[in-house]
């Protein structure tokens, strides 16, 4: 068990293993997203009340899911890096921040665009929307901390602490639609209940959520691999990989 843990913590091992997973994972992600987008845009029925603007849900909900799941990934990696000094965990934490920020941005923008035809406004200071904006700033904070220290160790520690403190915001986001009854509608999908959507609308959403999970894994791996190369660029194995022995730079 510990051997496995140590091997997983080795950036070199991760770099080589993830190179083999990437093509498969990317293929699945692209396939699911293409099917999901076509299904959601053209084939799912329109909503009785909201009409076609409802089709934004197929981006909005999966992006919001991953914006939150990505925060768990970042905070968990930060904690592992902080406790066990695992180098790979620090790299994952750093890589997760810009991805999470981008997904939160997508969730906010699609929400705003959806809000206009539905609520008549792009933006309200609703509890859910405001707590998502806080999430966006937390991601930006972690990115900023990574660049504000000259030593990598100090930067890792500071970012990990900020991401762990920011965990407070996560239950607030989840519960915001129940605690404060404002504009944002309650959750469409709950793990504990049957979905409140018609299956014809729900199935493409499920495909999109799965596609977004795969997409997230792909970009997290891509970012982490690049970060590994950057931090290990002076080590023997990177030098050998780039040099005359392996010109291709796999």
């Amino acid at each position, binding site marked *: 068990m510990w051997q496995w843990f140590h091997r997983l913590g080795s950036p070199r091992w991760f770099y080589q293993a993830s190179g083999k997973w990437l093509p498969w994972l990317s293929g699945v992600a692209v396939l699911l997203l293409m099917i999901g987008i076509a299904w959601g845009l053209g084939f799912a029925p329109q909503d009785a009340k909201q009409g076609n603007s409802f*089709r*934004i849900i197929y981006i909005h909900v999966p992006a919001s899911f991953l914006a939150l799941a990505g925060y768990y990934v970042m905070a968990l990696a930060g904690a592992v890096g902080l406790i066990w000094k695992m180098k790979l965990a620090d790299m994952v934490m750093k890589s997760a921040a810009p991805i999470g920020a*981008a997904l939160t941005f997508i969730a906010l*923008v*699609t929400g705003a*665009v959806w809000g206009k035809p539905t609520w008549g406004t792009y933006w309200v200071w609703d509890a859910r929307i405001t707590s998502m904006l806080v999430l966006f700033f937390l991601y930006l904070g972690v990115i900023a901390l990574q660049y504000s220290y000259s030593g990598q160790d100090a930067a890792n520690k500071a970012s990990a602490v900020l991401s762990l403190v920011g965990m407070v915001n996560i239950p607030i986001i989840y519960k915001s639609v129940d605690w404060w009854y404002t504009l944002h509608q309650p959750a469409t999908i709950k793990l504990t209940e049957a979905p409140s959507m018609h299956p014809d609308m729900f199935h493409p959403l499920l495909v999109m959520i799965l596609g977004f999970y795969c997409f997230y894994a792909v*970009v997290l791996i891509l970012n982490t691999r690049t970060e590994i*190369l950057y931090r290990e*660029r002076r080590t023997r194995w990177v030098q050998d990989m780039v040099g005359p022995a392996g010109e291709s730079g796999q």
Partner: protein
Amino acid sequence: MMFRFDSLQDFLQMSGHGPYVWSAYVISIAVMLWLVISPLRRRRQLLAGVLRQQRREAMRQHQEESADDFVTENRK
């Protein structure tokens, strides 16, 4: 399952909601493409940098060797 729109025009307009739906999709896909492209571009630059460094070092080594040869030649 069937296509819900009568024509391409109908599909693009989405009974008035077209601009909202399409801009949401286009912006999201653009951001997602950026998420894929930016680590790949950074990686390419990194690898090129490592290769450049290696070449520079090899060249310097080569020059030092020939300089040594020159010195030994003159001492003869």
